[in-house]
């Protein structure tokens, strides 16, 4: 009860921070004196500095509390309460912005565009969850990410995803991360934000197609745990790798695993790995050859991916508005399309030379060509490493939470008899005191 009291106090403290925040605009809109009504924006208002720092402080507090609840307190109920708080605060109150997932793009753009400066708070939002993951595993996913929280809440009838499907679908997140980096680096688009399936729910407003996308994720999420986190989230890709290196991590049993198998089916995210048996000798030899082949194949896959990524630059470059404009202006000038668009009209109004526009577009395509090599190479690398990973047999004596896949939700704790024993012992200790 004492621990639960601590949690209540912690959550109440976070809520008190929440009430201290009030929306305020840094730059008030101009005062029109002609009866013009200022439309309501669909994106959140910029926040005053102090409130941005409060957001960062709430994130830090949330991550700290989540780490404590996952690793020390080991309480699913408390993690759940924190998750609900995060959904309300970072989701519905802060309207899903700033979020570490989208911050990837800000960081990338700041690297490639010297004129773009990342606000400190965006940097903090990007870095803090990574630092915590390095030490404590994916505690951000556990109780702080509003996107994860939203999906966790609708998970009512979990159905396991076959391993082959899980492995295959997970590749999409890597491709998405690569694409997001490519488009952000070229200054074309922030695709993570554009296709964020839940932000429309948080803002109670948005494009119908994005709402449909979000609804699809939630409907699937009733049966398949956190589909966005597992198969799409580009930040999750980075967290997975960080989590592999984490100093501390979630364990199903509080101490020694007794291999009772009670936890075997408890994870809706397929993150519990069963103990392995000894490898038959004939299979070992065959796998060794396969591994050698795959290692040799890896650079081929990377080159092939890079070649393909660069080859589709004419298509990918269309994400950049200048390229789209140049193509439109060309079609108009050649008489291949009728009429004009707002963009082409505006361009012609500037009096700028068409040649100059074509040159800009050509340069951007060249950037996409080079970026395509890296993007395709990255995808090839991921596929190659995935194949290599499947060919490597790891030894496990106990049931373990997979370091990369485990989102530290805490569902498996209560399935472990050793955990029950720990709690009972703790209660007795409290009773005696």
């Amino acid at each position, binding site marked *: 009860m004492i621990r639960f009291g601590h949690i209540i106090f912690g959550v109440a403290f976070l809520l008190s921070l929440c009430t201290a925040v009030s929306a305020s605009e840094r730059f008030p809109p101009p005062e029109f004196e002609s009866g013009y009504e200022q439309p309501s924006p669909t994106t959140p208002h910029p926040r005053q500095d102090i409130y941005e720092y409060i957001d960062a402080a709430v994130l830090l507090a949330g991550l700290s509390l989540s780490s404590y609840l996952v690793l020390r307190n080991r309480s699913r109920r408390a993690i759940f309460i924190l998750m609900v708080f995060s959904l309300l605060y970072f989701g519905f109150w802060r309207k899903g912005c700033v979020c570490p997932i989208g911050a990837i793009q800000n960081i990338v753009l700041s690297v490639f565009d010297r004129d773009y400066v990342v606000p400190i708070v965006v940097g903090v939002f990007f870095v803090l969850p990574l630092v915590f993951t390095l030490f404590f595993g994916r505690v951000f996913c556990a109780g702080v990410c509003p996107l994860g929280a939203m999906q966790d809440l609708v998970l009512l009838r979990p159905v396991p995803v076959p391993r082959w499907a899980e492995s295959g679908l997970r590749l999409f997140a890597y491709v998405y991360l690569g694409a997001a980096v490519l488009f952000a680096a070229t200054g074309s*688009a922030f695709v993570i934000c554009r296709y964020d399936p839940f932000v429309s729910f948080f803002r109670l407003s948005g494009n119908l197609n994005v709402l449909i996308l979000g609804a699809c994720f939630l409907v699937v999420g009733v049966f398949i745990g956190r589909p966005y986190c597992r198969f799409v989230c580009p930040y999750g890709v980075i967290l997975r790798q960080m989590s592999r290196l984490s100093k501390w991590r979630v364990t199903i049993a509080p101490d020694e695993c007794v291999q009772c198998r009670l936890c075997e089916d408890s994870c809706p995210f397929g993150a519990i790995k069963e103990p392995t048996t000894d490898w038959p000798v004939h299979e070992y030899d065959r796998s060794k050859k396969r591994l050698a082949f795959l290692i040799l194949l890896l650079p081929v896959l990377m080159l092939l991916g890079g070649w393909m990524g660069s080859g589709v630059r004419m298509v990918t470059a269309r994400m950049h508005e200048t390229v789209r404009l140049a193509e439109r202006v060309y079609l108009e000038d050649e008489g291949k399309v009728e009429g004009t668009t707002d*963009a082409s009209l505006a361009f012609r109004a500037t009096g700028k030379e068409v040649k100059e526009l074509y040159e800009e577009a050509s340069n951007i395509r060249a950037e996409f060509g080079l970026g395509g090599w890296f993007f395709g190479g990255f995808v090839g690398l991921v596929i190659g490493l995935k194949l290599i990973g499947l060919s490597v047999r790891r030894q496990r004596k106990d049931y373990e939470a997979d370091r990369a896949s485990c989102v530290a939700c805490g569902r498996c704790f209560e399935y472990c008899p050793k955990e029950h024993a720990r709690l009972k012992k703790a209660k007795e200790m409290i009773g005696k005191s």
Partner: protein
Amino acid sequence: MNRRLGTINIKIFAGVLAAVAIVIAGVAVVRLDTTGKKGSGLGKEYVYDIKELAKIDPNLILYEEAVEAISTGFTDSRAITVDSQGSIYTAGDKAIRVFAEGGNLVGEFKLADVPRCLTVSGDGKIYVGMKDRVEVYDGRGKRLASWESLGDDAVLTSIAVSKNDVFVADAGNRIVLRYDTAGKLINRIGERDKDRNVPGFVIPSPYFDLAVGHDGLLRVVDPGRHRIEAYTFDGDLEFWWGEFSAGVEGFCGCCNPVNFAILEDETFVTCEKGLTRVKIYDAKGAFVGVVAGPEQLVEGGTAGICQFPADCQAGGFDVAVDATGRILVLDTIKNVVRIFARREAG
């Protein structure tokens, strides 16, 4: 056995649901228009269509074109004024052209620069506003004075004279300057001043007109606020009239009226761009009627919408009145002066 079947069924159901959801989500993503090619997606009630506004009830039109239009001969006509004798002065290109009341060209003199505005004083001196300075000429076109430049930011758009004062509207600096007739600056009018309750002028385009009223107050257009303001010569804001409205009784667009003139009976003639209209308001600012609307003033009777930023910066007609109550509209597109007279009653 049944339990196992149930488990299989739920797996199949979840699988099918996931497949359907992936297809729907894929279609939603592909169909998401991020380029704006499909338009705003809003209904027709949100479409900006001002065709209907261009139509004016014929009963509201109180004037008719009296005589044949006078061709100014300019390629870029800028301003018009009428002196006490009824002579019509037009400014454009790099010249001033003077026409008799009947429309015959009676005089012309060349200028070193493009004139933007002009007025004629009671003693026959012609005050011409260039981009950044005022030049004074006699009736024969001899330059009498060139006042000090107001700097690179200045864009002079209107000039008016009273007995002892010359008022100059500078749209670039959003200010009215009061000079004596010798060109000495006396004071500045219309600067934002909370203590004097002067809000400052809102001027989105280079249209900023002024005139001295018969009541001794200076009238200045505040086009961004869609009103005409009355100032004392010392710069106190006394009152204003005019309101934004897409209807015929008000002024619409970003910045209207663009020009105005005051008739002998103290009624106002206003001129609007975009939705080109010349209208009459009484001394208190109540709408009286229409001199001419888009159907009379613009070919095809259409209303113009600013497609380019440059469109908003041009196309405003100038207006002047003579002692007989005729209204002279300088069509800056066709470079003609169109003269309207009040319709006979009945």
